[in-house]
């Protein structure tokens, strides 16, 4: 297994293939949760069991009725909450996939330059918005380049930075083009394998993601926030 892992790590074809399989697995997981039962049907199933009980106290029936109301309301609330959360989680998963797939690619960037005045103009006419890139002098970050990217069919900018041999991706999309409403947040490493920070500024949604420390991700995010 170790030999296999080591091979996949060093072979771009195999790692791309492994990634595509993981992507399919994840996509089936999401697409497979397709059908939800009607509320009336849920009640009918609950009723099929309810008449079999022989509770002698009226209180018992009242409690049962209250429980049904709580379950129905709870289910509706939970499904709404989970719907939102699932949309948000899907966006983060796709961002992580874009980051990994780009780094696994043999040509991760389409414009290769450490100069922000070369990278930024390259996006002119390619994406429907403009953005500012931060000055990196006196920081540990260096710009490697950029490429166009897509999230849910919306075009965006993908920039790659380097800090102490870690690669960090910065994504920018128009907020209105995103499939789910997102709140500004930092995700803990336990939730994803990467550190992620996202915020909205000037109509754009920013994502900073990488396997660098949370402090590095936050520092780069702050540089972008001050540049915008």
């Amino acid at each position, binding site marked *: 297994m170790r030999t296999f892992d080591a091979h996949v790590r060093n072979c771009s*074809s*195999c790692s*791309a*293939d492994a990634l*595509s*399989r993981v*992507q*399919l*697995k994840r*996509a*089936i*997981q*999401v*697409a*497979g*949760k*397709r*059908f*939800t*039962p*009607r509320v009336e*049907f*849920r009640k*009918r*199933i*609950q009723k*099929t*069991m309810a008449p*079999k*009980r*022989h509770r002698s106290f009226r209180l018992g029936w009242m409690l049962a009725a209250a429980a049904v109301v709580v379950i129905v309301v709870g289910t509706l609330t939970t499904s709404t909450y989970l719907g939102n959360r699932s949309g948000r989680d899907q966006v983060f998963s*796709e961002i992580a*996939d874009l980051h990994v*797939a780009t780094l696994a690619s043999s040509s991760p960037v389409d414009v290769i330059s450490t100069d922000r005045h070369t990278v930024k103009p390259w996006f002119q006419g390619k994406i429907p918005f403009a953005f500012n890139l931060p000055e990196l002098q006196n920081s540990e970050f260096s710009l490697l380049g950029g490429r166009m990217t*897509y999230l*849910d*069919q919306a075009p965006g900018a993908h920039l790659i930075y380097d800090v102490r041999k870690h690669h960090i991706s910065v994504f920018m999309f128009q907020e209105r083009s995103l499939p789910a409403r997102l709140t500004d947040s930092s995700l803990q490493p336990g939730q994803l394998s990467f550190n992620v920070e996202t915020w909205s500024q000037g109509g754009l949604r920013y994502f900073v993601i990488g396997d660098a420390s949370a402090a590095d991700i936050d520092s780069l995010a702050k540089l972008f926030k001050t540049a915008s």
Partner: protein
Amino acid sequence: MDLPATNLQLDSFEELALPLFDQLYNFAHWLTRNRDEAEDLVQETYVRALKGFSSFQLGTNFRAWVYRILRNTFLTSRQGLKVTMTVPLDFDGEEEGPEFAIEHDTPETLLFARSSHELLQSAIGALPVHFREILLLCEVEEMSYQEISETLAIPIGTVMSRLSRARQTLRNQLRPHLQQGVGPRTIAKGLNHDL
């Protein structure tokens, strides 16, 4: 529910069975591809499970047990009988090797590039039922091979080979549609769609 169930049994049953309600319904709908039939199937599953609950050993795998009931109920239904009569006899006959062929434009990367959720749902729906059910149990219900083996009453080796073939069939179905940019509805004309 002809046999009387004690309140204690009923409590235990509800505790175990009701949390599975949404998942069972989703699985039933994928099998039947029809809301009314899915509801009938889930209801019949609950009735049969409650009736046979006294034979269920607490502490063993309830989820696999109840899914097996649902599947058996489906297979003995009119629609299910049609499925068993149309499943190719050799669909588990060959142990296919692992899928090591490497392609750079795989259906998955194309799928993600185009982000087509509906397309994938259509492709899953167009799978033959024996592939559809095993794929859903593995990827959506996140059952272990052991649980799938118990649910479908097949050996673990067969679980692995059938899963491999299910994934390969799905990839094959996605590939031409994605490469040609054909919309999701076209896939619905695929093999065994009605089942």
